[in-house]
């Protein structure tokens, strides 16, 4: 809905405008710390990723922080230490994993504490409940069949789930085709809040088109209100027009102290997958 409103602002420009790449002259940035944390009710998923901010025109990945002290306290009791990249995988530099694993529980509160040098960063989040996914079905898309972007991919996958009306829920969706994360546009973020939803999520199209026998997987993460706000703000920042017709860009509101960017997300997860078939 918000995307549509943003698009309105662009619509006049779509009719007439020309675009050109320009080089902008930006001042030196004060370095910021970015903390990305995730705890779910699935044992394998918990991690904390620490990186530094980068220059606008920098190439390559951001600098990783590999010597921080990271721990999570559960319900102000048990403390779980996180260890940096225990298996020494090059791709996992900057990632910290719970020693002995961490399987979250709906309703528990988790407090993250990250110490980098002299600075301390903290965040607190509780795990909200998640609904279940009833089913994933498929639909044949005639217009995509007539002119497919990728040969063979002309099926859509539809999500069906119940949406409990007696509580406030927010969700983040991730869609995978054969284990690869897919989005319709690189800057899409798929979040929903139930304030605008009706009773059911019925036949909601997920991102992407699929070929027969592709494995489509949907991950549905429950979000706290704060996490939903973070992802909405992030989506506005990634998709905005710079403040001409839409609100001016701003950093997303997050739950981490001491001016760190990023978010400490604690979610319950609902999963489902389907092998794409022809529904006709």
């Amino acid at each position, binding site marked *: 809905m918000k995307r549509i409103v943003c698009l309105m602002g662009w619509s006049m420009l779509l009719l007439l405008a020309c*675009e*050109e790449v320009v080089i902008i002259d930006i001042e030196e940035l004060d370095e910021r710390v970015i903390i990305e944390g995730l705890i779910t009710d699935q044992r394998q998923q918990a991690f904390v990723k620490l990186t530094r901010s980068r220059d606008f025109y920098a190439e390559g990945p951001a600098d990783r922080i590999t010597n921080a002290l990271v721990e999570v306290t559960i319900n102000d009791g048990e403390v779980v230490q996180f260890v940096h990249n225990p298996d020494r995988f090059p791709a996992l530099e900057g990632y910290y994993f719970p020693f002995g694993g961490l399987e979250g529980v709906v309703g528990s509160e988790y407090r993250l504490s990250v110490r980098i040098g002299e600075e301390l960063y903290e965040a607190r989040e509780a795990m909200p409940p998640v609904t279940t996914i009833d089913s994933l079905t498929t639909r044949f898309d005639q217009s995509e069949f007539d002119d497919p972007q990728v040969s063979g991919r002309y099926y859509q996958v539809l999500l069906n789930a119940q949406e409990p009306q007696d509580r406030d829920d927010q969700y983040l969706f991730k869609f995978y085709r054969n284990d690869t994360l897919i989005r319709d546009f*690189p800057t899409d973020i798929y979040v929903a809040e139930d304030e605008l939803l009706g009773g059911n999520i019925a036949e909601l199209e997920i991102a992407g088109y699929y070929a027969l026998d592709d494995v489509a997987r949907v991950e549905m993460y429950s979000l706290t209100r704060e996490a939903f706000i973070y992802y909405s703000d992030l989506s506005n920042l990634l998709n905005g027009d710079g403040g001409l017709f839409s609100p001016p860009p701003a950093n997303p509101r997050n739950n981490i102290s001491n001016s760190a960017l990023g978010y400490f997300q604690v979610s319950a997860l609902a999963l489902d997958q389907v092998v794409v078939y022809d529904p006709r």
Partner: protein
Amino acid sequence: MLRSGIALLFMLFSLQLTAQNRVTLSGYVRDGATGEELLGATVFVKEKQNGVVTNGYGFYSLTLEPGKYTFLFSFIGYETVERKLVLNESLSLNIDLIESSQTLEEVVVVSEREDENVTDIQMSRNDISIAQVKKLPSLFGEPDIIKSIQLLPGVISAGEGTSSFFVRGGSADQNLILIDEAPVYDPSHLFGLFSVFNADVIKSSELYKGGIPARYGGRLSSVLDVRTKDGNNQRFGGEAGIGLLASSLMLEGPIKQNESSFIISARRSYVDAFLRAADQDNLVFFYDVNAKINWRASNKDRFFLALYAGRDDFDFGDTFGFDWGNRTATFRWNHLFNDKLFSNTTLIANSFDYGLGSTSATNAFNWDSNLSEFSFKEDINFYISPSLTLDFGYHLTYRKFAPGKIVPGATSILGATELQNEQALDHAIYLSVKHKISDKLTLDYGGRLSYFQNVGDYTLYLYDDVRDNINPTRIDSIQYGGFETIVDYLNFEPRFGARYLLNKSTSLKLSYQRMVQNTHLISSGTVPVPFNTWAPSSTYLKPQVADQFALGYFRNFKGNSYELSVEAYYKDIQNVTDFADNASIFFNQDLPTEFRQGTSTAYGTEFMLQKKKGLFTGFVSYTWSLAERTVEGVNQGRVFFANYDRRNTLNIVGTYEHSPKWTFGGNFTYGTGRPITLTSGTYEFGESYLPDIITERNGYRLPAFHRIDLSATLTPQKARKNKNIETSWVFGLYNVYSRKNPFTLFTSIPLDDDGQVEGDGTLREARMIYLFPILPSFTYNIKF
């Protein structure tokens, strides 16, 4: 204030009665060819070296001792009429002025009253001549007074192709735009490419940037008072214009000659016809209709009925569409109680609405929103003597704000939601005195008392913390019944102006005004879009209050051929309405949690040199200005540049009457770039997102823009007066050297030609949007 105002009135009345036997000359000044009243025409008494100006309906009144006088009636563009009269008793005299013909010789008659720039007490006001607007180059060949306003000193535009304007450090919603006394909430068509003002029907348009008279209120920064023609009551005629993007037709004529007349005009764009022909799914069109009837029942009573309706409609394929429009209806009654007391009673009904709809299977919805208002106004001009005029009156407006309801489609996953309506009653009573103290000094003082009530039917929610916009928590609700006052605000707005004549062609002027705004635009972008809603002052939104001082130096040269004005202003706004960082302003049930009101400071200097006579006319305007805001909750409470802050603006505008057939026009415009909130770095988040880091609101500045536009008008028929049909062609060239003027800047991920992400996905780039390269246009006009 009220009591002393009434006391003053009584005192002046009794002064009247006990004074010597004075006589009054009064009447209307009109265009001899069409019967249209001329507002702002000067009636000057030579022997008294004093005079008055006709009011908004062309009425004047001069009360003098009996005697022999020479009266000069003049108005720019018309031949001055001189009448020598012996006044022994009061006399009603209507004067018809004839348009001065433009000849190849220098215009010989120089009226003393064309020094209005110097002698009139009004400062910070610009009259926009429609005749002049039509001779100048315009975007797509559509003459537009708002684009012309953007060339005046002290007025800034957000960028090309927009119809919003920013006056002396005020945002776009701080301008009171009136068409025949009815407010217009969105003056734009096609997102600002055109404005709702059809140049064919405009009689006069005045922009007040400061020294705003007490009869105006409701917005902080400016008043654009546009009046449409009443309709030629002598003969039937019309005009048609065919342009590249839109065409218009106007018909006017007498219903009963010299007594009543009508004017009707319609304008429609046909961009949709082109798009349909090109097999495009996207359609866009707009239309305007203006209609007016007026009836001069007697010399004492006149009635006017004016209607306006306009609409824009966009459709994007089958997926979604939106439309918006204004509708106004005004009924006015001019009544002369006696030859000194002129009354205007107005009834206005006004509505602005928009709708948004999407027909996609899962996201289908319809959103409709509407603002309607009804007003009653009583305005009186009391011409006590040539040195003393009183204006006073009472205005009452009822407004209903319906921000919207979402109705989902049958298969939509969205639920139905509705935002509450709000209602407000806006009362104002004003008095202003224009007082010539001596030959050199004239004062204009007075004030406006505004009383604003936010009333029910309404449920007011109380919040645990009204600034918590992450988890807004309502703790209580209070139910208000119909027209029950929820909160009220009383404000006094003093208005003061002074003009001191240094000599016959030089003056100094000073003004102070306080303006109060109780209708707030809910928009946090720089350029308002039609679906920004308006909201009344309420429990959570305090009235915005602006204080402005202005000082000016005015000088005329070479017998009033050149007018120089230099003005400096300082404006301070309390409770300027702004929104928290990351505010969600569309369809937010807890919108009060996003309001952040702060202060705004703006100051600047404006310089304008105009050449008003001769074959070559035009002006140079230069403005240096600065506008900044401090709002808690925005930019961490630190001061930041306002969205419309432009340091330097230079406009050079000229028209050259080469011959009766050919007129050339041109303008050069230059402006410092506006500020924009831009990245200062990026970071990694999620599987591949690269968000920008924002450290400073409006910390970056777009490059400057400048361009030259040219136009040529060809009028083939040599004699313009006595032929029945006059045709003309206007050829235009917009952005002659095709400069890529930056419209806005945004960051994105570089994509290659196939639309795939370039490189390893860690790259970012900045893209600039620019709108119009060199654009030729032509318009064909017929006048009959």
